[in-house]
């Protein structure tokens, strides 16, 4: 009885974990099945033949690489822009006193919760009138609307975790405010910055609505709308190809999960969900 309980617990937990991961496992399995095996009834739960032809076709015959490049540029630029602004802004919100600071902090939180569809119509009009529609730049600006409040809020929490006396000590030791920021606060904030950058990157990488509305040319489409267009345009839906695209699209995520997972979990703690 004493031995049975942990075994039972393990079996139940792992059964649930596998059930939850099944869609992902199925995604990989489908992506390496030959087209002919795909439409068999009942389905082969494990592939009888393993093939990488879909991946090859994805890279050589579709615009996938173009979408990928667009997404990399979009997510990277958004992240750099937002984290740079957010780091300075969070420093200001946490460590300085001036009129309107509290109101500003509340405004940040408010925008963090704002639905995108409220902003999408005016943003669309703005981009059209500025002649920016169908550019990656318009998407970077649009992604700022959710990424900046998010990054600010996260970085604010991280900044609050740095003891104030560290900065005070640097000031007494002869540093200016910005000197103290560079020498003491920034090194301490770095894990928080990395965590925020990862979250921002993932948010931007995964964003769909703005790309749908603001961009309708293939040349600047990011992965989300690009891959979806492959689903819609194909007369006969090529599920293997789409699953291969899904796997490839998740690669940055898999990399983050494999090597930088601790940053993700620490970001969660800071993101306003610590009870």
């Amino acid at each position, binding site marked *: 009885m004493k031995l049975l309980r942990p075994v039972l*617990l*393990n079996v139940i*937990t792992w059964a*649930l*974990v596998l059930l*939850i991961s099944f*869609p992902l496992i*199925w*995604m990989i399995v*489908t992506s390496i099945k030959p087209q002919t095996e*795909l*439409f068999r*009834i*009942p*389905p082969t739960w494990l592939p009888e033949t393993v093939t990488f032809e879909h991946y090859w076709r994805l890279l050589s015959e579709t615009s996938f690489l173009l979408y990928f490049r667009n997404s990399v540029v979009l997510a990277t630029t958004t992240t750099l822009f937002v984290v740079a*602004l957010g780091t*300075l*802004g969070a*420093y*200001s*919100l946490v460590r*300085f*006193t001036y009129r309107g600071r509290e109101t500003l902090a509340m405004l940040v*939180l*408010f925008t963090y*919760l704002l*639905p*995108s*569809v*409220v*902003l*999408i*119509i*005016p*943003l*669309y*009009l703005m981009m059209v009138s500025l002649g920016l529609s169908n550019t990656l730049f318009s998407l970077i*600006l649009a992604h700022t609307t959710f990424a900046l409040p998010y990054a*600010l809020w996260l970085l604010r929490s991280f900044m609050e975790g740095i003891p104030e006396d560290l900065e005070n000590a640097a000031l007494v030791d002869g540093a200016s405010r910005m000197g103290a920021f560079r020498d003491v606060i920034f090194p301490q904030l770095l894990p928080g910055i990395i965590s925020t950058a990862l979250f921002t990157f993932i948010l931007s*990488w995964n964003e*769909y*609505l703005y790309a749908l509305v603001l961009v309708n040319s293939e040349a600047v489409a990011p*992965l989300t709308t690009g891959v*979806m267009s492959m*689903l819609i345009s194909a007369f006969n839906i090529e*599920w293997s190809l*789409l*699953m291969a695209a*899904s796997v490839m*699209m*998740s690669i940055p995520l898999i990399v983050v*999960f494999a090597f930088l997972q601790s940053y*993700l*979990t620490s970001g*969660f*703690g800071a993101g*306003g*969900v*610590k*009870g």
Partner: protein
Amino acid sequence: MTAIATNIPKSATPPLERAYARLGVLLIAPTILVFSLVIVYPLLAAIYLSVFSIYTPTLQGGFVGADNYIELLTGKAFWNSLKVTLIWTVGTLTLQIVAGVGLALLLHQNIWFRSLARSLVLFPYFLSTVVAVLVWKWLFNDLYGALNQGLMQLGIIDMPLDWLGSMPNAMIGVILVGAWKFFPFVVIAVLARLQTIPENLYEAARIDGAGPIARFFDVTLPQLRSVLTVIILLRAIWDFKEFDLLYLLTGGGPVTSTQTLSLLVYQEAFGLNQMGQAAAYSVGMMLVMLVFMVLYIRQTKEKNA
């Protein structure tokens, strides 16, 4: 003495403090600028647009006063979407909380390869909604989908089900996918909190003769209360405004049976090309959300105080 007293006005801010305040404003200035440009201005513009009738392709139109809001209040579209939104939110949120707390409790135990199990569970949350939708559409495929085939092999159903094309299956489908995609958020937050519950609380309960179930209700749950409040509010807000998942999975269909408010706004603006009406819907939607937002912001303030 009097000279000194008159030279120092009572409430003058010292120059150093003023310099610091200036630096603080300078540091936040770029953020404020970007905020005004991409958030505050569009937000006000949305409210402004909502009293106009604008045809999207030409962007031409005129002032219509409260007409759009009268349509919102008297027409069926907004109220139908609000109902759909509430069903979707309550349904998916409930599943997320139940699954999230349950899995967090299991993953808190000392199981084999715990960190691998945790990673696998968290993964869907970080996955692009596009990927999630593609995978699930394939799973839901009526003829070759693994879901129908699996259920038939297990003998639970004997005919393939139409998952996304008919009601109530479509609503069940999106709620299910929503729960699958977003419950890891609950897992992470609850796990983090579980790790901070002092072990001696459980010891004390055990000494008092509490079994595992009593320990959950008397020790664990009260300790999770505050974090659950925050999670529920936050997820309620996010689920309420969710667009990608529903749009990509069903497009609001069949007909409008899964058309939430976000989808209604999009459809009105870019499907029916009525931008002014869409803006009015979005303002209405925001007003409904304001209730949750105020609750969440108050909760956050309380925590900080």
